[in-house]
């Protein structure tokens, strides 16, 4: 409960994803604290897998209606094969989905 986005008690409706960072910024102790604290949300680009979104964000349809969401941190399908889109259900492993390594 020290001001990290992960531990904030409330989500601000409508708050946009303020930053898209590289791999694991939410847990990576090597990211400067000021960078962590300035980001309201982050997206982890998982190799050969989904996009993990955590922090303050809103998931909406094109018309702005909220997409049903059961948890704070979500995994968004990137391979297109999930049966529960927009969320990941692990099917990328069955179809051997591969991503290029994200640029450094």
């Amino acid at each position, binding site marked *: 409960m020290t001001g990290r986005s992960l531990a904030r008690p409330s989500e601000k409706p409508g708050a946009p994803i303020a930053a898209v960072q590289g791999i694991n910024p939410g847990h990576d*102790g090597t990211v400067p604290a000021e960078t962590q604290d300035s980001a309201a949300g982050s997206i982890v680009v998982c190799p050969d897998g989904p996009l993990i979104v955590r922090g303050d964000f809103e998931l909406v349809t094109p018309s702005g209606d909220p997409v049903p969401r059961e948890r704070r941190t979500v995994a968004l399908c990137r391979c297109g094969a999930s049966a529960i889109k927009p969320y990941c259900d*692990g099917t990328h492993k069955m179809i051997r989905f591969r991503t290029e390594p994200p640029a450094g």
Partner: protein
Amino acid sequence: MRIPDTRGPISSALFAALAKAPATAKAELDRLHRVAAERVAASGDILTDEDIQLSLFCLYELHYSGLDGVTDSWEWEPELIRVRRLIEEPFEDALRAAAHQAAGDVELPAGIAMTSDAVADVLFGLAAADTGPSVSRFVARKASLQQLKEFLVHKSVYQLKEADPHTWAIPRLQGRAKAALVEIQADEYGGGRPERMHSALFARTMRGLGLDDSYGAYVDTVPAISLASVNLMSLCGLNRRLRGAIAGHLAIYEMTSSQPNRFYGNGFRRHGFAAEITHYFDEHVEADAVHEQIAGRDLAGGLVEAEPKLLADVLFGATAVMAIDSLVSAHLMASWEAGETSLRTAVPAAA
């Protein structure tokens, strides 16, 4: 939890000791220690030894919800911990032997510190290579209503305290690995909503099939190997030196969960059960697709980056759960394909 029926001399001696207060149980403790030493040495296969696995399960239970009528002062009684260690050591040896077999030909770069991504890659590779008997496909396509109940009964021994064994590791971790484990566990425990705790969702599914959802209600009916799969988690969760193993265990649990849970849900839908009953499985399809990424990369990978020497234990935990779950699955499938029950006794009706 209600004290189970005895399954042999160790559990008999254990329950005789626990019926008294530690200060007045010296004779019972001496006898328990002697009997345990003899029986452990004589056990052919500790993983499937009914008396040993039940006794270890009950010894660990003193650290969870306790045993009905047993004073909590037994929890840290040195003579009882001594008996626990007497069982734990050969149990761990057997797990390491089974895990070694399950690991197959996994190759690690020697002498190079592994990044968290590389650790996650190895764990995902192990999970993908897990080709044991498929209970989930059987449940999806063929399982009878009675077999669905048996399936829930086996799972209930752990699922009614789902996530608890891994929670022991939180204060033993630091930084990225700790944050990852807390994030996963918060989700397991319902994100602050008790009715959404995974254990509560499982209890709802049990009730939906007319089963007793009180904790430990079916311990007497499940065989040693089902207890061993939970004892593995308690062993790794309660011993700080095995913090790498409990991280690896959770990673493989999450990585081998999403697709099987979809199949489990399909099996219950096939029998006409509504969304309220299948919600436990449907929830795990989505939740564990999140958790497997965090557990593999941030928990297990983050731990290995912080403490490179723990890599071997992470892999031990990962491959031990694969080995034990494979034995549980083999038992279920062998029983069901022979048209027999997989339980020790018939399932009593819910109270």
